[in-house]
């Protein structure tokens, strides 16, 4: 079975059934995944455009490009769009939808109609959130700290409402994945053989189902308070503004793991497939995934070391945060071990893995640094923290998102992009990223607080470097969009399994037919069976 490439005439999920209506009302997890992909990518573009405007403003210590309140709205909406409309749904809802059924040998998710509904609920939430811009936008920062958020005159309620709706969509998706993974696994795909990406989605889904309602509630309370002035967090009435921070971070810290666990899952799939090597510790990665999902619920207080919590609590949250970091380290060890001694396909996906590991390890270690209570006192709310979470969210999640795009592009489209252009874009994205955010670590060290429209002139040189980097990063992203679109339309046919991966998702044709499989499937080898793969030229076809 060496070259059973999909014929152009073969039925794929793209073309069967035909018509716009069949797409809009589809129950096919692959089509819903693709629709999620385009929607979240659009959000990434909008959020990215905001980021570039912000960087342009920050070139000068006293910019005349926009005024202070416009700047405040820009960074608020940058954060809201990137966190709630891109990061949280991007990998779980786009790649998770496309891949999870294929990886567990199912024909669809457990509740296809709920899946489609979650997409439209997401769209409604995204539209409400974005439309708030037409009503002047909000200027609270994406964290909505009371009492500023309950007293500002901007459109807080509308944005809170939009995020609440997106949250409902997130819960629906998470619930659907949990039920799917529990009930639709092919008989021989046991828990012990579940692909690592599916484990990551499983952990993510638990957080989505259990943490999102608390966020929804705290934003709903802020939204209601903003309209009716209930004073629930207002000290004048006996309320406590710090209590809002507890509620908010109880979700929003686990939400960090909603954003990063699927990214780790994607890397855990790409590393064995690119290195043609069995993961050096499957169990370790699974345990670490569970550990992050569970202990991640107990670390929210490390956002509040200088907010006025007791010294004892600060110490406790600091210590618990160290445990989460150890779970992340276990995964890094497993990836490094897997790379050694394999047969590595040097191509865009592994290059992104290279960037990911470097940026994620440094970003993660900077997280250990800010969890070290005394150091956090200096760094809290400065650019150091901004750089830290962008290393995780952009250097980690966005890089993994790009790795996933480049790895699964032939799976989804059946075509291959230009490797040369891909490497150029990789260099621009990685280089641009490092140039953008390394100066921000130094700005934080030097004492530059975040969310500053104007700043003391001594910080200017580093800001200019950061802005140059941001535009290089932006150019790299645009380049990637360009060659990927070209490849999607006119790229060469990639074959069913261009990476010669043993992963379950590659055992159906690429792109898959509407029902995922052309023949009954047997899953007698596991997803990482590279032990017998010693002849480098050997190619493996599908198991169909």
């Amino acid at each position: 079975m060496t070259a059973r490439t999909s014929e152009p005439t073969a039925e794929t999920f793209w073309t069967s059934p035909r018509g716009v209506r069949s797409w809009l009302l589809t129950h096919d997890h692959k089509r819903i995944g693709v629709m999620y992909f385009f929607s979240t990518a659009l959000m990434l573009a909008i959020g990215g455009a905001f980021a570039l405007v912000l960087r342009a403003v920050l070139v000068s210590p006293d910019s005349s490009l926009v005024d202070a309140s416009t700047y405040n709205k820009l960074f608020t909406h940058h954060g809201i769009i990137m966190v709630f409309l891109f990061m949280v749904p991007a990998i779980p809802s786009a790649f998770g939808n496309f891949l999870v059924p294929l990886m567990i040998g199912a024909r669809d998710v457990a509740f296809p109609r709920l899946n489609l509904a979650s997409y439209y609920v997401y769209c409604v939430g995204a539209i409400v959130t974005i439309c708030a811009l037409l009503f002047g936008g909000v200027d609270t920062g994406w964290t909505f700290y009371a009492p500023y958020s309950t007293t500002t005159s901007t459109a807080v309620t509308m944005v809170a409402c939009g995020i609440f709706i997106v949250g409902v969509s997130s819960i629906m998706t998470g619930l659907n994945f949990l039920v799917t993974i529990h009930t639709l696994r092919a008989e021989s795909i046991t828990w012990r053989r579940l692909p690592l990406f599916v484990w990551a989605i499983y952990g993510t889904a638990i957080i989505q189902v259990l943490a999102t309602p608390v966020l929804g509630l705290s934003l709903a309370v802020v939204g209601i308070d903003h309209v009716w002035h209930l004073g629930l967090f207002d000290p004048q009435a006996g309320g406590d503004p710090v209590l809002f921070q507890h509620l908010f971070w109880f979700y929003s810290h686990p939400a960090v793991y909603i954003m990063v666990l699927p990214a780790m899952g994607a890397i855990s799939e790409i590393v064995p497939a690119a290195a043609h090597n069995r993961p050096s510790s499957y169990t370790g990665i699974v345990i670490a995934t569970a550990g992050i999902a569970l202990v991640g619920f107990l670390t929210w207080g490390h956002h509040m070391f200088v907010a006025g919590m007791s010294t004892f609590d600060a110490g406790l949250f600091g210590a618990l945060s160290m445990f989460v970091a150890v779970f992340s380290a276990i995964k890094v060890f497993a990836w490094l071990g897997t790379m050694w001694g394999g047969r590595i396909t040097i191509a865009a996906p592994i290059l992104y893995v290279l960037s990911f590991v470097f940026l994620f390890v440094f970003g993660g270690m900077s997280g250990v640094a800010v969890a070290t209570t005394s150091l956090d006192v200096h760094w809290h709310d400065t650019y150091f923290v901004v750089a830290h979470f962008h290393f995780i969210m952009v250097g980690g999640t966005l890089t993994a998102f790009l790795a996933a795009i480049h790895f699964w592009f032939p799976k989804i489209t059946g075509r291959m992009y230009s490797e040369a252009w891909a490497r150029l874009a990789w260099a621009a994205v990685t280089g641009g990223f490092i140039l953008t955010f390394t100066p921000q670590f130094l700005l934080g060290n030097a004492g530059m607080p975040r969310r500053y429209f104007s700043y003391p002139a001594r910080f200017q040189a580093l800001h200019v470097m950061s802005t140059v980097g941001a535009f290089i990063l932006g150019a790299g992203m645009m380049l990637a969009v360009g060659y990927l679109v070209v490849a999607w339309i006119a790229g060469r046919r990639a074959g069913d399994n261009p990476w010669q991966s043993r992963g379950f998702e590659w055992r159906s044709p690429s792109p898959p037919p509407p029902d995922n499989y052309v023949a009954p499937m047997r899953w007698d080898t596991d997803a990482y069976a590279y032990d017998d793969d010693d002849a480098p030229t050997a190619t493996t076809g599908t198991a169909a």
Partner: protein
Amino acid sequence: MTPQRRHAFRVAVWLAIASEALLFSGLFMLYASYRSEHSTAFHLAAAEDVSWIGGTNTMILLTSSFAMAVAIHFARLGRRGVARGWAAGVIVLGCAFLAFKGYEWSLHLRDGIAPGAAGDLEGVRGASLFFTLYYLMTGLHALHVIAGMLFVAWARHRTRRDDDPLAIELVGVYWHFVDVVWVFLWPLFYLVT
């Protein structure tokens, strides 16, 4: 329906309930924090709530849960007509609960106790927090009662053409959850005086 599919629906309902429980937990946490900070005010404010209404509503919901259990029992036996009757009883009791709740809200509003600063009982610091939480928590719970009634009505309608008791069983689980939330709200707002 395959056993796998039934299993899927069961898991889904329990996950949805877990998610709902976390939704309420945020408000319970706010209540706990403010209660410990303003315990006197919370005692004074709780005395304003009409305890006979709270007690009656508890009885109503407990009875409705019993009716729900009976409806499920007969649906399993295949006696769909009887099951439909008991399910109708659940809906009637739900309406009664909402009527009492609405009556109590109207009494409060007549006395000038509204969410926010109006609920401070003429200067008792922290009392307004109690009433804001009272309106938020009982309001959110009332929305769940309404949703629960709609689900029960839907499942009841299904039994006309479908002898599978699964729908009414799962709706029953949800209804019990709504009931249990009230069993927690009742002492917090009526019995702490």
